[in-house]
């Protein structure tokens, strides 16, 4: 029933990227689930980890586990050095000017919350405006709503078109001297849209606003240079970049971080405490209260090294080819509609089918060993924009192959068979 690739005459172009070798770095991919080889297509939710990251975690807990910044003993010095090396690594990764501009947080969510609460509460007042887009993840909506409630500022939303693209003209109309913060997603997790963030930031600066980029979905797909983007804040999560969960990065422009009050308080973030007065520590420690995720931070380093070693500039044409191939093949399925057809799009395909609800699609694919995500993807406003309750989403990473796409297509034919 399912037409094969060859019959369709679709060719997968050679791009010079060796996906099969890259896959060997990821032990989890080499297993069976539900009696079928695992096809992992839920990378926008979280990515798998290469051996070097697994070793990094193991090595830390097995050989140098210790608290940091406080011990005089050997292990504590070692752990502190590795922890601070990870910071320099992240600085290089994002091309930040200074290592003190790198704040370790739990993930993109905590990074945005930090900026919203610290910067927002300190500098926003009634009448000010925050601009986000209609394709934001809840993590880049709710913190701003809360800050608006507390400060009297208001939230403005840049609409998107039917293809899921950011409407620059509408953005231009919303910008004014009331605009104080612009916070936009780099790549949409629900639609795959790649936003023109550099231009968005330029226009934000033109009215004197600061700009935050939610890079949760972008760091694993496109090289990021915060100086070139000229953003004021950039956040990402380690676990979506082949690193551990529970660790992420907030980049902040030094001059802004300096002026921002602490977000959480306690140990490590102070220079001195008496009951009369506390003097806060310098950057970046002012924002890292308490014992951080030391193991996760140290094991983020090999994840950054991994991305550097594969070179996203070389991976991009491969992922583009994979997206194009998957799009063409998915459209073979009768009654399947892709939500999000931006011209600039990452390898994320959200879709709905006439015959089956996304949840049923997910269950049937799961029985074939294929992992996708179904639901609203923490982007309910996007679902509302397209008038659908949910989508099924296949999201690809640099270890996914054309054969994974073929398996997905075969699984979708099974959905048609059951429900058609």
């Amino acid at each position, binding site marked *: 029933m399912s037409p094969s690739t060859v019959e369709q005459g679709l060719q997968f172009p050679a791009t010079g990227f060796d996906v099969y070798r890259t896959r060997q770095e990821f032990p989890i991919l080499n297993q069976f689930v539900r009696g079928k080889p695992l096809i992992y297509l839920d990378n926008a939710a979280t990515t798998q980890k290469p051996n070097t990251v697994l070793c990094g975690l193991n090595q830390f807990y097995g050989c140098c586990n210790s608290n940091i910044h406080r011990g005089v003993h050997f292990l504590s010095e070692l752990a502190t050095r590795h922890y601070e090396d990870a910071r320099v690594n992240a600085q290089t990764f994002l091309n930040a000017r200074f290592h003190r501009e790198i704040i370790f947080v739990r993930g993109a969510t905590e990074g945005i919350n930090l900026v919203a609460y610290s910067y927002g509460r300190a500098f926003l007042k009634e009448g000010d405006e925050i601009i986000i887009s209609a394709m934001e993840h809840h993590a880049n909506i709710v913190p701003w709503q809360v800050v608006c409630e507390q400060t009297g500022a208001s939230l403005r939303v840049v609409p998107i078109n039917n293809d899921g693209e950011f409407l620059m003209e509408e953005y231009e109309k919303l910008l004014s001297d009331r605009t104080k913060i612009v916070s936009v997603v780099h790549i949409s997790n629900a639609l795959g849209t790649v936003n023109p963030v550099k231009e968005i930031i330029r226009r934000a600066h033109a009215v004197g606003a600061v700009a935050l980029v939610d890079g949760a979905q972008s760091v694993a797909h496109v090289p990021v240079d915060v100086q070139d983007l000229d953003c004021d804040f950039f956040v990402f999560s380690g676990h979506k970049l082949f690193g551990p969960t529970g660790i992420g990065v907030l980049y902040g422009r030094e001059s802004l971080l300096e002026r921002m009050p602490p977000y959480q308080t306690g140990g490590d973030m102070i220079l001195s405490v008496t009951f009369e007065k506390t003097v806060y520590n310098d950057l970046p420690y002012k924002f890292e209260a308490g014992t951080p995720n030391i193991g996760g931070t140290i094991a983020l380093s090999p994840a950054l090294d991994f991305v550097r070693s594969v070179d996203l500039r070389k991976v991009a044409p491969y992922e583009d080819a994979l997206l194009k191939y998957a799009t063409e093949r998915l459209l073979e399925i009768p009654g399947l509609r892709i939500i999000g057809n931006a011209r600039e799009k990452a390898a994320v395909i959200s879709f709905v089918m006439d015959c089956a609800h996304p*949840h049923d699609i997910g*269950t049937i694919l799961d029985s074939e060993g294929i992992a996708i995500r179904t*639901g609203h993807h923490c982007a309910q406003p996007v679902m509302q924009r397209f008038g659908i*309750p949910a989508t099924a989403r296949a999201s690809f990473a640099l270890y996914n192959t054309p054969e994974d796409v073929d398996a997905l297509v075969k699984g979708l034919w099974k959905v048609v068979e059951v429900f058609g």
Partner: protein
Amino acid sequence: MADLRELYQEVILDHNKSPRNFGKLESPTHQAEGYNPLCGDHYWVYLTVTDGIISDIAFEGSGCAISKAAASLMTSLLKGKPVSEAEKLFERYRAMVTGQGGGDPSEMGRLVVFSEVKNYPTRIKCAVLPWHTLHAALSGEQTASTE
């Protein structure tokens, strides 16, 4: 995992495709809205209860095959039944789909087609949402949520 056909039995597929008692009631004595924010299943259940008997019942809304078939079968089973029996059936049904015993075919009647749901933890909420909504309606609450 057992065969998918055990989950998506013919009866379920049939009720999903052509749901029974689908629509609104003119002037229901009870009604409630049920919503599962995670997957977007969203239903309204309407009842007319006279002298403790469910004289009419209907539902509308949208969701996955499991939830829609559960709503459809629920409404066709309960029409003409006493409220007390509906509540008892809800308890037994919930025990069956959550894998807490029950599921004796002689007691469950046509609802046995949902007995496989217990092996699909992510689908249990789908199967019970219409029943939660029914329960909310009968208890005089406006909304039921799976969260």
